[in-house]
């Protein structure tokens, strides 16, 4: 049984300038050849690899319906490590759909999400870190995010981790030598533990940049919530500088959760607008309120908007208190600040929101920049977004485990535990790092990584 040939449209759906159909596998050239005619009449298999050729796309009856550029690559020197054909079709998706349909008819199977990159990884063409970075580059929403993804695609994170591994291995070797050769090795040099300490510090510094790194690669979800008619949708539009949400003077206007992607200070932000929080008997609004609550509980930042003229009710305080207690980032916004003085004193807002509050107006634009700055500061924390940071929850998880094991090694030693325990902690740290670089990955990790890929990549 040989590997199947897979195919998919690699460009996003819609009416773009061109769209690309990708075919990979042992029969890629054969399958693609069914629908493509070279000018010379020669079969597609005769095309020299890595040269671009113009071909007609023909339908089942052999009638030419369009022209396309064809690139034939031969495994193992291709992205997937297999024979790979890319067909660039003009215009919208109709032509590419037809090309895909005929390739599938010729025996190829529609690719699963991430399957091309997965094959590239399995065929040893790219490392796990690179595979993750491919995903990021593809989805990179901002320039900073793209440069981060680029760093990881070039393997910078892996290179740094490997340096840590080398240093930890030498510390480990020193400890183990003293146990294995008690007659020859005098005492474990404090040098070994010094190395552990300094690697621990360096990992901590990188982890410090995890919120920023994750923000760059996944975007910051910020959710506008608050009582009805507080001006959430108006702020939503103002922050996006677009007329996106319906605004009326009727309380309970917004029902569905609206999502828009934007960029604040170089960081990608996904802004959410939600229904006003209140007890209601309206069936549709009840669902809206439930959705608002869920959106708030799943987002990274909660922007709680209230009407300055109305002040904060006990319900407002309950909501805010609950989220703060859960350790959520809550920004309190006193809206409609243009319409008159705020009923709530600054010191009171300070107390309710733990210091994070802004006076703002959707009408004058006052306070909007401050909202953006407050939100992004939580992630930036004064750091330079161009420096390397971890870019996926998986990487952060591995780093965190490595860091906590190293911290434990250090504390166990000072608590007076025997060396064998210190060694065990070091080994656990090394295992976590090996997982990060993909030297030691479990099946689950692979699944996770590749499930995030869109079809065609």
């Amino acid at each position, binding site marked *: *049984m*040989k*590997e*199947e*040939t897979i195919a998919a449209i690699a460009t996003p759906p819609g009416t773009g300038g061109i769209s690309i159909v990708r075919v990979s*596998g042992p029969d890629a050239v054969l399958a693609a050849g069914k629908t493509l005619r070279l000018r010379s009449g020669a079969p597609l298999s005769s095309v020299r690899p890595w040269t671009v050729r113009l071909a007609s796309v023909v339908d089942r009856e052999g009638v030419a319906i369009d022209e396309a550029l064809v690139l034939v690559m031969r495994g193992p020197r291709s992205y997937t*490590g*297999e024979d790979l054909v890319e067909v660039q079709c003009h215009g919208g998706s109709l032509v590419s759909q037809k090309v895909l349909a005929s390739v599938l008819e010729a*025996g190829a*199977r529609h690719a699963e999400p991430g399957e091309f990159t*997965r*094959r590239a990884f*399995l*065929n*040893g063409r790219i490392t796990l870190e690179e595979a993750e970075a491919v995903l990021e580059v593809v989805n990179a929403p901002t320039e900073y995010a793209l440069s981060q993804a680029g760093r990881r695609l070039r393997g910078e994170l892996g290179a740094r981790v490997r340096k840590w591994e080398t240093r930890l291995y030498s510390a480990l070797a020193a400890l*183990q030598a*003293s*146990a*294995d*050769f*008690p*007659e*020859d090795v005098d005492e474990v040099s404090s040098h070994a533990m010094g190395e552990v300490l300094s690697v621990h510090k360096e990992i901590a510094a990188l982890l410090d940049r995890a919120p920023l790194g994750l923000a760059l690669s996944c975007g910051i979800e910020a959710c506008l919530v608050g009582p009805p008619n507080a001006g959430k949708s108006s702020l939503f539009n103002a922050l996006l500088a677009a007329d996106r949400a319906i605004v009326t003077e009727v309380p309970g206007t917004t029902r569905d959760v609206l999502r828009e992607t934007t960029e604040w200070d170089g960081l990608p932000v996904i802004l959410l607008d939600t229904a006003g929080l209140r007890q209601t008997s309206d069936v549709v609004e009840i669902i809206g309120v439930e959705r608002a609550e869920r959106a708030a509980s799943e987002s990274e930042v909660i922007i709680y908007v209230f009407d300055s003229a109305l002040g904060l009710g006990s319900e407002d305080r309950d909501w805010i208190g609950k989220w703060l207690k859960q350790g959520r980032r809550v920004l309190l916004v006193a809206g409609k600040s243009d319409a008159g003085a705020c009923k709530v004193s600054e010191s009171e807002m300070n107390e309710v929101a733990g210091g994070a509050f802004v006076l703002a107006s959707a009408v004058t634009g006052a306070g909007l920049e401050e909202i953006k700055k407050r939100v992004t500061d939580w992630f930036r924390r004064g750091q330079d977004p161009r420096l390397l940071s971890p870019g996926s929850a998986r990487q952060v998880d591995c780093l965190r485990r490595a860091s906590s094991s190293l911290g434990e090694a250090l504390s166990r030693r000072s*608590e*007076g*535990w*025997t*060396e*064998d*325990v210190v*060694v*065990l902690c070091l*080994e*656990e740290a090394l295992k976590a790092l090996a997982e990060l670089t993909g*030297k*030691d*990955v*479990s*099946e689950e990790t*692979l699944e996770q990584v590749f499930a995030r890929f869109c079809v065609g990549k």
Partner: protein
Amino acid sequence: MTGSGERFDILVVGSGHAAVEAALAGSRLGRSVCVVTLDTGNIAGMPCNPAIGGPGKAQIVSEIDALGGEMALAVDGSTVELRVLNASKGPAVQSLRAQVDKRAYARHMREALSRAGVVLRQGMVTDLSVSEGAVQGIVLSNGDRVRAPRVVLCTGVYLESRIIVGDVVEDSGPLGEPSAKGLSESLKRLGISLGRFKTGTSPRIARDSIHWEELRRETGSDIPLAFSFLSRPRVWQNDACYSTYTNEETHRIISANRHRAPMFNGTIEGTGPRYCPSIEDKVFRFAERKRHQIFLEMESRDSHEVYILGLSTSLPVDVQVAMVHSLPGMKDARIIKPGYAIEYDCIASNQIKPSLETVAIKGLYCAGQINGTSGYEEAAAQGLIAGINAAITLEGRDPVVLERHEAYIGVLIDDLVTNVIDEPYRMLTSRCEYRLLLRQHNADQRLTPLGRRVGLVSDRRWRVFQEKKTMLDRGRELLGTKVDGIEVRDRLRTPDVHLEDFAPVLPGLAGLPEDIKAEVELEAKYSGFIKRQEREAQRLRRYSSKRIPARLSPADVPGLSREARDKLEKYAPSTIGRALEVGVSPSDVLILLAYMKDLGARGGQGGDG
């Protein structure tokens, strides 16, 4: 070439530590066993230092004991000094080391063999008879044939061996015995590829030529100890071990004669053990060290030979004399036998299965230095496993294969069969991932039930095991007692609280033997770490029990390395764990897993694409 018509169930070739355990196991499991060796006068000899145990090795000895092997009993029957190494470094690495009387040790083994009814036969095995891929017996240099469906090769360092002292090279075995000729050729003909390793030993000095008063006496532990779970612990202190250091003069002599060292001038081709370096190696590699510790150990009560631990060398005799004379207390020392290096053939160990049977030939097993290991303990462990498997497979039973999380022996054999060993392999605690689970003192708890199932554990050992288990349970129960509302067990989970501290409030403690108290205290103190290792081992086990479908054809799996493909084809492992065991690398296993997932997703359709 007429056969004598003799026939046994198991033939063991050699009479060193691997051979002795293999023969005893086979015979105790009810099989007729014949040991064929170059010199029946040399049974379980110690051509290197007269000592057994140490980090990693002591754990192996206890595991052999737990399974019903002989080594620990032989040690306890011949111990001169006994001490604990790494006492302060933690239970995972703590290990006993015994200096033994090598003649008494050999006597013990000879008697054990004769009690077990093992037949001894002197002769040089020059060929194997093999038919249809299965071994049928051996051929001796005089043309005699002995038949057996199982042959265990424990040839030690004798295969085509050469002894090297300075520029003198002799084809000979360690003790002036002949080197084993012919068998290497026979193995090669059978498709087994051979490597060449090197090891060495130190000069032996006459006891009465040493000024002992200038050396430091090393006394054994004053706490009663024993290797075997069957022996009564006792204090062993016999005025048999002294220590001193090399000095700058010693190092100068070595450096000045570097060009005469076979290690460096190209005379020695074999790869030597990094972990057991010769003194010239140490002096050149660690040039910054001004001195190296050495130990002087009496070899036997009945002999006036003294072994110098740490002074292994193959320098010319005149250099050895100068070197020895430069040491404290040795200005008049007489060398009885010079140190030497020995080169020998061994098989590339990835040609054996985890059962220690060779891949190429059914019924042919290899154990000990022939598989590329060094050390008496490592050899004995393999001998035991090979002996057990040679015997039980004759009854159609599945071979015993220990996993890495079950025993150091599991680690040892797994390392051998999955790697191409490129230097003599010595066990170290650092080779073992689950070392906090595989402590020396719980070897019986880990392995004696298996030994009982196999059939090697005597009624007496089984009774002792069960009594100890009862005591351990009693001790564990005692730790459940609450003191100030907190169980003693939990109070012990910090380094500076000890079980003895609770003696006043735990009267039951007084009735427990010391070793039981120590064991349950340790279990409680390290419970957090022990659990972590257990979880990790379990995770591994789940993963490794995953079945590889029989319909999977390795050639179809894209991205697999050629090596992995070959191994999958050759061994057809039934599970992922087996695949790892036969040496398929983790990244190849990952590729295999991903492929299996696809295969599963495509269900029984097969044949598509």
